[in-house]
Structure formats: structure tokens, C-alpha cells
């Protein structure tokens, strides 16, 4: 298929076919989530379930790819579904306008191959880690704060967030804000991790945390227990 011809050198024909069969949940359709949805749709992942309870607000316009003045007040997941249809009609998009938590999470995640964390707070991420473990699927974690960002790939049982989110409740993004470029950077790395999980090839950020500081362009992989 001509659409995927530029994928062909880095992915085999079988791998290209394989990702067309995969079902991914993206939790959060904001800063990070907008880019993740765009990248996964263009990559040709077969099915995307997109979760977010919110509508677009003016403060989203500085960084959220799916936002523009004409969609303010509109459901983020509906805009995401429309964008996926525009970018790649081959992809099945299922919008779910809700807040994923410990109670509804299993029903939402079951039947999918992996989940991508594009959330914006600690508590929801900890819930997502619990639910992903219960369903038995990998979770690709990503977060940003100002110039900084982090990524980790978490398999059931790893509980990586227990190490980095145990003691704090509020992140530095509250004081630093979030610019236009760190969401795209972190989303790109998360999608590369998701692709490697799907095709079973490459080295994952499992039991490791990639910590990025774009102010000094440092990319440190921190080993974790």
C-alpha cells in the first residue's frame, strides 16, 4: 500500500501488517495525547480507542495539536475521532468521553494490546498502572513539565510509577507550565516504544526512566529496580 511505503524500510511487510491488527488505548487527548493519536494513525495502527472527559479550552491552544479556535468547547475525543478519520480512514477510532479510573478502567482497557499514558496528573496515572496490570497489557508512560519530560515502558508487575510517584502529589508543571514542543518530543518517544512493543523488536525503556531536559539537551536513561 502506497500510504505505508515509507514505513517499509524500517518495518518488514509482516510488521506493517501486524500493526494493522493492533488495538491501542490512548488515555488523554491533550498535549501529549494529540501527538500520540496523530503519530499512531499515520503509522497505521488498526484501532485506536481515545479517552478524555474534557472539552477544548483556550488555554490548550499553545500546545495541544488537536485544538484550534474553531473547536473550543468541543469534546476532545470527538475531535480526535474526526482527526483520525481525516489522517487515515483505515484506522478504526472509538471515542470514550469519560475519566478512566480503577472502577471503569478494566472494561475500557480489555481487548486492547497496550495503553498509552497521555494523562496530566499523578493519581490518574497510578490508577492506570493498576488497571493495565489487571488487564495484563503494557503501559507506555510519558509526562512533561516545562523544559522537561520523561518516558518509561511499564509491563504488568513492573510498577515503575511506584518508584517515581510515591511521595509527591503535584508536579513541576504547576510552576513551569507546558510549552508547545515537549509534548511532541515525549509523544514521539512513547510511540517508538509502543511500536517496539507491538513488533517485539528493539530495546525498551523497561525498568528504566528516560529523563529529558531540553534546556541543556540532556537525555539520561535512569535504571530502576
Amino acid at each position, binding site marked *: 500500500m502506497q500510504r505505508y511505503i515509507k514505513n517499509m524500510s524500517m518495518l518488514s511487510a509482516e510488521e506493517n501488517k501486524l500493526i494493522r491488527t493492533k488495538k491501542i488505548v490512548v488515555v488523554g487527548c491533550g498535549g501529549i495525547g494529540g501527538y500520540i493519536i496523530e503519530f499512531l494513525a499515520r503509522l497505521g495502527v488498526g484501532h485506536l480507542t481515545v479517552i478524555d472527559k474534557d472539552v477544548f479550552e483556550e488555554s490548550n491552544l499553545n500546545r495541544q495539536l488537536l485544538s484550534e479556535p474553531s473547536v473550543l468547547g468541543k469534546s476532545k475525543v470527538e475531535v480526535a475521532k474526526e482527526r483520525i478519520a481525516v489522517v487515515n480512514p483505515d484506522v478504526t477510532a472509538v471515542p470514550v468521553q469519560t475519566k478512566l479510573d480503577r472502577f471503569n478502567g478494566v472494561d475500557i482497557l480489555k481487548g486492547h494490546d497496550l495503553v498509552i499514558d497521555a494523562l496530566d496528573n499523578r493519581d490518574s496515572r497510578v490508577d492506570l498502572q493498576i488497571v493495565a496490570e489487571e488487564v495484563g497489557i503494557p503501559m507506555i508512560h510519558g509526562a512533561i*513539565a516545562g523544559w522537561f519530560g520523561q518516558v518509561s515502558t511499564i509491563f504488568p508487575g513492573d510498577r515503575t510509577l511506584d518508584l517515581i*510517584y510515591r511521595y509527591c502529589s503535584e508536579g513541576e508543571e504547576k510552576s513551569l507550565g507546558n510549552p508547545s514542543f515537549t509534548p511532541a518530543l515525549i509523544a514521539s518517544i512513547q510511540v517508538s516504544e509502543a511500536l517496539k512493543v507491538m513488533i517485539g523488536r528493539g530495546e525498551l525503556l523497561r525498568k528504566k526512566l528516560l529523563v529529558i*531536559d531540553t534546556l541543556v539537551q540532556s537525555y539520561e536513561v535512569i535504571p530502576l529496580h
Partner: protein
Amino acid sequence: MNIKVKLLTTFKKYGEGKISENGTIPLPKGSTLRDVLKYFDIPLDMPKVLLVNKDDQQNLDHEVNDGDEVVVFSFICGG
């Protein structure tokens, strides 16, 4: 004894000129995690992720040993 230290993100600036080329700082035997933070003048009450030998450690009285690796970086959870 020598402690290997990595200060990242907001904490990077606290390490300027204080960490040797091989990434270590000298501390007396019996020093604690609090002493490591004090060495760099890092405010003790500043929210942070603290890892000692790949594991989280928020007990500032935790004694560090020669060769231990301490990593300090920001608590990041935006999206």
C-alpha cells in the same frame, strides 16, 4: 568515601562545580541522604524524586555508603 551523584532537570544547577569529573562527591563515612542534599544546598523541602541505587528513598536519615549512586530529579506529571 565517594558517592556517585546525578542531578537532573531543576536540580542540575545545584551541582555546578561541585561534582568531580567521574561524577562523585566526597563525604565522611556515616553521611546520610540529608548530607548529600546539604552538600549541594538543595532545599530539603523541595519536591523531588530521590533514588538511591535504583530505588526510591525519601528517608533523609538513610545512610549512604561508599560507591552508592544517588539520583535527584523533578517530579514531572504534566501532559
